[in-house]
């Protein structure tokens, strides 16, 4: 079984559209959407979810107004500015509470208790050529790295169940904790780069990360015709750090049309130039795998 993560550093480079296109090319696959903060892959792969689970991201404090004497001790201890005092009435500001429980411990009236934050969910569903695992982190919640771990664990379990050889991970943007959770232990990372100054900058930052974790890394330049000079610069830079550039895709309205119709571009326009280019990228990704195993 191999795990391939699609990442981009910068958001909006076309990572999810490419992930969807690659996912529909495989004979059998488990697709894992690890961009739990802003999951989009399900809009294209349309999973029929048959399992829904609660994800508890942490705890928040709640003040019981019947017991509270508004003494203000909790407010004096809270370091997160998470307790308000309006007209002598003390309340927890839910979005600011870090869940440290100190207010609960200091309260002389036992008026504060902790409740689990359980508004986030994760799902398993059927897709045309396999299964999909995806999740929805409730707004204002953190610890998306932990949810990414759950999605990946479930993806492995599911791949084992249906005997799929491939897990494709659509990763989150950035270089933070959820990105690290998405790439540790994968076999390959495909980076979707964009030829802009900020795109080049972010590509370099994420390559630092994949090299730190010693993951085999490949690059695709998306919308390369946006700025040919910068695309060339990316190719040269990748050569200098020995990262193969396995494809360059032009801007193509077919990608947007496919997305609007909730289809992957390889399904929507299977014989288009761009779909053929994506097929070549997919074959190269898998070819390298064979070469490695001999």
């Amino acid at each position: 079984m191999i795990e391939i993560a699609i990442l981009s550093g910068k958001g909006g480079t076309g990572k999810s559209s490419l992930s969807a296109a690659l996912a529909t090319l495989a004979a059998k696959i488990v697709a894992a959407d690890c961009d739990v903060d802003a999951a989009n892959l399900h809009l294209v792969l349309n999973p029929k979810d048959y399992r829904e689970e609660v994800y508890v991201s942490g705890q928040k404090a709640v003040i019981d107004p019947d017991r509270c004497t508004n003494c203000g001790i909790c407010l004096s201890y809270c370091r997160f500015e998470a307790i308000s005092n309006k007209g002598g009435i003390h309340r927890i500001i839910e979005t600011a509470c870090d869940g440290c429980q100190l207010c609960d411990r200091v309260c002389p009236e036992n008026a504060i208790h902790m409740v689990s934050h359980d508004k986030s969910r994760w799902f398993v569903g059927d897709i045309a050529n396999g299964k999909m695992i995806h999740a929805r982190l409730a707004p204002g919640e953190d610890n998306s790295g932990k949810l990414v771990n759950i999605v990946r664990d479930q993806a492995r379990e599911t791949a084992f169940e249906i005997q799929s050889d491939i897990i494709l991970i659509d990763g989150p943007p950035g270089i933070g904790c959820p990105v690290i959770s998405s790439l540790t232990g994968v076999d390959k990372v495909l980076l979707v780069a964009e030829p802009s100054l900020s795109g080049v900058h972010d590509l370099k930052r994420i390559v630092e990360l994949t090299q730190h974790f010693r993951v085999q890394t490949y690059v695709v330049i998306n919308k390369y015709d946006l700025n040919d000079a910068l695309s060339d610069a990316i190719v040269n830079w990748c050569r200098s750090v020995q990262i193969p550039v396995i494809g360059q895709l032009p801007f193509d309205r077919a990608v947007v049309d496919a997305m609007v119709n909730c289809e992957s571009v390889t399904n929507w326009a299977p014989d288009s130039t761009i779909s053929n280019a994506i097929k070549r990228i997919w074959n190269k990704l898998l070819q390298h795998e064979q070469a490695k195993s001999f």
Partner: protein
Amino acid sequence: MKIAITATGNSLNSKVDSRFGRCSYFAVYDMDENQTKFIKNPNKEAAEGAGPAAVQLIAKQGVTQIISGEFGGKAKSILEDLNIQMIMLNGPEKSIQEVLDLMAINK
């Protein structure tokens, strides 16, 4: 001397869990008694700091060697401070029994 191995389940047939801090169980093998006990990892689902919490758990057991697939940065530095030897296991999946057998041969 005690050795801990991260395990996916609580039997000798269970596979080695490749993650240290977020493994399912710790198999703690007591060389002197020639016995293995399994401890459920309470920090598997911890939001943060599963690695350091796991170090504390196994160190309290008096473990001096730990075998796993990978160690996180924070866990690594505490294990070094405590003089607990880390052994990284690569390659195909092995069961806890297979690892114990290998150690017996290498002894």
